[in-house]
């Protein structure tokens, strides 16, 4: 098991005036699968390359099991990174690719073969060791690239957008494989992704980066139920925001007083409620709402509502929304435990 701690990590690329990574502090749990999530240019891949040693930081420390790896060349860090494209070496066979790192360590070819064969099986490439990489499908190439890193038994495994070049079907398959192998090996793993749904489905914990800074770090549910800011909430599909003031468990706004769950702070805040948590039935915090639009989205239906002049959006199972038509007046409710308060300054 390996703990990985980033402390004050900063990197500005030559010729740019804004740092790509700005004093990032992040403690990765040993043996966990953590997603580095964020829009393009947020510093995700820069963080990966700093950990792998492919870039040098301007400031800050990278500590592996309590020991700084600042001065170590990439090949001595015990960190294996799988870059975004499969990047299988075209002049080697699939087996040759998977055994590449072992060969660099000077292992004999029989020893390499002894380790490559079971690794091929683990990524479902049995019997494909002698093929050229071009004979593999996109998903198979991605799996071979994963095997090429895993065979080295690294202390930390870094995966840069491992699903970005795959179709929807293959994506799910690869997700399951990464999850399974990570649980079996217990290797502390960091996955870079820009896709919020992918991060949620794949990881134990998510570190969300905005503009080179850590926006939030925690388990996936937190980003829906307890977002740290409006920007975080929006990145995860939050759409309902109402400014107002909370006091003694009640939120005062144009929507009238709303009961809050316990433990929320008093003061000026932005109220948010997830569109899928808003209820289309009477209950606590009930309100009268007008239906403005109903859009069938497949497995869910989006309902645009007006409540006391405020536009709210709900996301419901199609069955539940089947009878709704624009112009109808309906009862909705905002369950207290679905309400969350954001800093009000953060518009």
């Amino acid at each position, binding site marked *: 098991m390996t703990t990985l701690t980033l402390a004050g990590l900063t990197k500005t690329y030559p010729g740019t005036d804004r740092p790509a990574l700005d004093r990032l502090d992040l403690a990765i749990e040993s043996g966990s699968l953590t997603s580095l999530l964020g829009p393009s240019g947020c510093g995700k891949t820069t963080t990966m*390359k700093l950990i*792998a*040693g*492919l870039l040098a930081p301007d400031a800050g420390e990278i500590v592996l099991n309590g020991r700084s790896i600042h001065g170590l*060349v*990439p*090949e001595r860090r015990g*960190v*294996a*990174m*799988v*870059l*975004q*494209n499969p*990047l299988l*070496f*075209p*002049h080697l066979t699939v087996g040759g690719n998977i055994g*590449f*790192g072992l*060969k*660099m*360590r000077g292992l004999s070819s029989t020893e390499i073969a002894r380790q490559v064969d079971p690794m091929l099986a683990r990524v479902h490439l049995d019997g494909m060791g002698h093929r050229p990489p071009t004979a593999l499908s996109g998903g198979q190439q991605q799996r071979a690239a994963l095997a*090429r*890193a895993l065979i*080295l038994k690294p202390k930390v495994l*870094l995966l840069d957008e491992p699903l970005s070049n795959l179709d929807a079907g293959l994506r799910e398959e690869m997700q399951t494989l990464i999850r399974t192998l990570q649980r079996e090996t217990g290797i502390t793993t960091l996955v870079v992704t820009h896709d919020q749904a992918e991060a949620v489905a794949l990881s134990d914990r998510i570190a969300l980066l905005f503009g080179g800074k850590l926006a939030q770090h925690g388990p996936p549910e937190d980003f829906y139920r307890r977002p740290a800011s409006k920007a975080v909430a929006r990145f995860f599909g939050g759409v309902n925001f109402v400014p107002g003031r909370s006091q003694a468990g009640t939120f005062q706004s144009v929507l009238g007083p709303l009961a809050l769950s316990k433990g929320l702070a008093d003061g000026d805040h932005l109220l948010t409620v997830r569109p899928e948590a808003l209820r289309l039935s009477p209950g606590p915090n009930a309100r009268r709402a007008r239906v403005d639009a109903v859009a069938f989205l497949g497995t869910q239906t989006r309902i645009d509502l007006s409540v006391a002049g405020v536009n709210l959006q709900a996301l419901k199972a199609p069955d539940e929304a089947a009878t709704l038509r624009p112009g109808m007046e309906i009862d909705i409710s905002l369950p207290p435990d679905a309400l969350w308060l954001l800093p009000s300054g953060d518009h």
Partner: protein
Amino acid sequence: MHADRLKSLAATALAVGLILPFLPLEIWSVAHGWRFPDLLPRETSTKAWTYAFSSTAGVLESFALTTFIALTTTLLAALVGVPAGRALGLYRFRGKGLVTLLLLAPAILPGLAMVFGLHSIFLRLGLNGTVSGVILAHLVPVLPYMTLVMAAVFANFDPAFEDQARSLGASPFQTFRHVTLPAISPGLLTGALFSFLVSWSQYLLTLAIGGGRVQTLPLLLFSFAASGRNDVTGAIALLYIVPGLVIVLVTAHQVSGRGAALTGGLRP
């Protein structure tokens, strides 16, 4: 446009264009008395070939010398051209366009004009009339060429492969040996073959810098041609085009065998 029709047309036109100019050489080399307006010579003879391979003619020594100069020029060009081409192909920097343009200058500026300048500089350096001087002079057109070819090769090379190798535990040397070199070798081979041929076929530069003391095959060929001995000229000319033909045949074989892979490398 129909690709297949175009292909046949182009292939035919080019095959004719490639072979026709050399046909008279073969005829000359075995001809005995071939005069305008005869379409073919009246008698044939192997006299010219016997003479060409005799020690008095100096053809074989000249062949060896030309080969040595071309090989050395190519090796030196590769040693400088690979790192220079890598920098030019992989990195963006201010003034890159200008550097590329200056590298093209030896192709843009007529070599004849440069000959005079080089001659007077080499005179002061004591390089005129030496094999080293000729090799240095050949590097003037060859080195920029090799650098540009390698720049094109590296422009198609994804340096992420090197990062990936490092991250899999390869040292910088292992990375070059096991990842970069295999990736650039088809382009490097193409560049080396062309460099060899550019050096091999230099006439004016060798004449000016070698000052008649470095007698390469093109010089020998020209002096026999000037002396009007068409049969020996034909024989030497055939020897002279041997490397070119070998390279065309070898490359054609690889092209038809491996398809587009090498073509990418060949397109400069």
